[in-house]
């Protein structure tokens, strides 16, 4: 028994259905468009929404990059890249600058995106109000009425309890002044990159059957208060490999005595810097100190 699959796995009818949902999503920035998500050959939660969006927009001349946690080499990124290598035969790359389609889980690349690129996010829970209101019927009504007081109250309660907003990732944003949107579980460090981005940003949630989008150059504001403005956060200090002091860092534990080092989460960014001669001994390099705390910058 031989089984043959269509280009990029999905049949053309399904792709058309997904493209219609994508077009609607682009027309209504930040609005979650229901779509008839298919069972994909990888499990729900592994990026089936992103994979379906990528499959629907991929053409034979595209160059695909897949990252997970900022890295091209994490197992799931490898697995998805291989899937499209096999079913679509498209060229793949790890270089952000060379890619036309970038599928990502949990990060936005550090290298600024361009207008000929599409960033596809894998989304676990598309509903930014879900943990405040579990019912879909209710949250859809709240979006329709632009009734977002509940999120502001949640953020306010954070401030009342902790003195600051205690949301570190999947930090809610307002798109084009209308829909509150879940940016997927990216660290809030990445939130400002979404605003006025020249690239098209598409979000696919397979299990929850939703697609949404941020068209190029759309205003995306992280929710905050005038007296408690949005704060970016990264581990303070420099990457131990390339010396970058402006990238999001991963903490790597190197022995069982609490020794740790901090390296760029975006592996392509880090490699490119090292190839360009940057190293840990950059002038003024300091070892990061986790106890030093927040390095805030307004974004």
């Amino acid at each position, binding site marked *: 028994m031989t089984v043959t699959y269509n280009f990029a*796995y999905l*049949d053309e009818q399904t792709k058309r259905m997904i493209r219609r949902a994508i077009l609607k999503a682009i027309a209504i920035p930040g609005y979650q468009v*229901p*779509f*008839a*998500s*298919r*069972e*994909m*050959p990888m*499990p*729900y*939660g*592994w990026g*089936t929404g992103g994979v379906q969006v990528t499959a629907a927009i991929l053409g034979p001349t595209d160059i695909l990059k897949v990252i*997970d*946690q*900022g*890295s091209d*080499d*994490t*197992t799931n990124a*490898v*697995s998805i890249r*291989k899937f499209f290598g096999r079913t679509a035969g498209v060229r793949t790359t790890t270089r952000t600058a060379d890619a036309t389609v970038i599928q990502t889980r*949990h990060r936005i690349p550090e290298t600024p995106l361009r207008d000929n690129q599409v960033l596809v996010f894998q989304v*676990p829970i598309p509903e930014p109000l879900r943990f405040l209101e*579990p*019912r*879909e*019927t209710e949250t859809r009504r709240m979006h329709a009425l632009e009734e977002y007081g509940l999120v502001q109250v949640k953020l306010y309660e954070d401030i009342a309890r*902790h003195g*600051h907003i*205690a949301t*570190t*990732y999947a930090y809610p944003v307002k798109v084009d002044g209308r829909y509150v949107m879940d940016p997927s*579980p*990216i*660290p809030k*460090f990445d939130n400002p990159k979404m605003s006025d981005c020249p690239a098209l940003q598409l979000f696919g949630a397979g*299990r929850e*059957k*939703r697609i949404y989008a941020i068209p190029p150059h759309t205003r995306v504001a992280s929710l905050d208060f005038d007296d408690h403005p949005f704060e970016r*956060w990264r*581990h303070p200090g420099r990457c*131990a*490999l390339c010396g970058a002091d402006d990238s*999001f*860092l*991963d*903490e*790597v534990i*190197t022995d069982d005595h609490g020794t740790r*080092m901090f390296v760029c*989460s975006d*592996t392509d960014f880090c490699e490119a810097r090292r190839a360009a001669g940057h190293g840990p001994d950059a002038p003024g390099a300091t070892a990061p100190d*986790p*106890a030093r*705390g*927040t390095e805030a910058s307004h974004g």
Partner: protein
Amino acid sequence: MYVAVKGGERAIENAHRLLAHERRGDRSLPEITTAQIAEQMTLAVDRVMTEGSLYDRELAALAVKQARGDLIEAIFLLRAFRATLPRFGTTLPLDTAAMRIRRRISAAFKDLPGGQVLGPTFDYTHRLLEPSCSDPAEPATAEAAAGPTPRVTDLLAADDLIETTARPAGDGGETPPGDLTREALTFPAERDLRLQNLARGDEGFLLALGYSTQRGYGRTHPFAGEIRLGEVALEFFAEDAGFALPLGRITVTECQTINQFKGSASTPPRFTRGYGLAFGHCERKAMSMALVDRALRARELDEEVKAPAQDEEFVLSHSDNVQATGFVEHLKLPHYVDFQAELGLVRRMRRDHEAASGSSREASSDDPAPEQIREAAE
């Protein structure tokens, strides 16, 4: 020394090879064939076909083998294959009244047209391990019942004692049933989509929910009106030919429960129904499905919705085991980035906490012991 997380590709390939090796088990034993699974693990195959939403014993048996007997994994394999299949059309509704009966029981009537047919059932076996079960005696045979075997609910409906249809008012059957694999499910959902969802739903989840209704969480006073197992004809209306073509027969299990309903100002008291249908022999599934179907009709029947089994969004959003297992197990995927962000927050909050508790101790204590102050300062 920093070891970069490289080599994901090699790791995956090696993991797949190891998986195939483990699947095969002890190579001194003969390899199990899919035909053996299809013939001797029939109920596993039936469950995989039902929840996999694809009637194909051969592929379901292959899925069971490939999944090393993990039925949810097998269901997933079948579903992923099903998603790639083109749709030629929809068959005519099954006529389960015309079923070739292999098993048919009613807990509501002692005897009835067509009789009670026990069939192949575990019901009255003693659950004793029997090492000699490998060589069973030939089954006894009997004359097939001559007359028809009408459905119990049809007999009751003849006296207007049970609702005849649960279609929404104004729908005479001209609206084709929905398909949640072709359009995203939205709420509130009508009964066609609810039943489709339940038919694909996890047996264990529906069993627990059905059980909960029996224990008082949304009680509906059910009777097993009828459970029947057998083969039904599948027909497809071909536009070109202008008549219905027989496609063959499939095995199904059908369960209809009879449930209490007090009536309302406009309707006299009569029984209501819960409905369950599964591919192959899936009795537990069909019964659980019927209980949950009835519980989910609370809104339609003006009953108070207060138990989990009556809560449409709760039940329908969590019944699919392929979705559930994917999302639960995705916690195995790396979450370094989110965790790093949370780690930063916890450290900051601990620092704030220490600072606050340090200052409050100083403020509240009249004469703190020196070691207490040092501890607070650390």
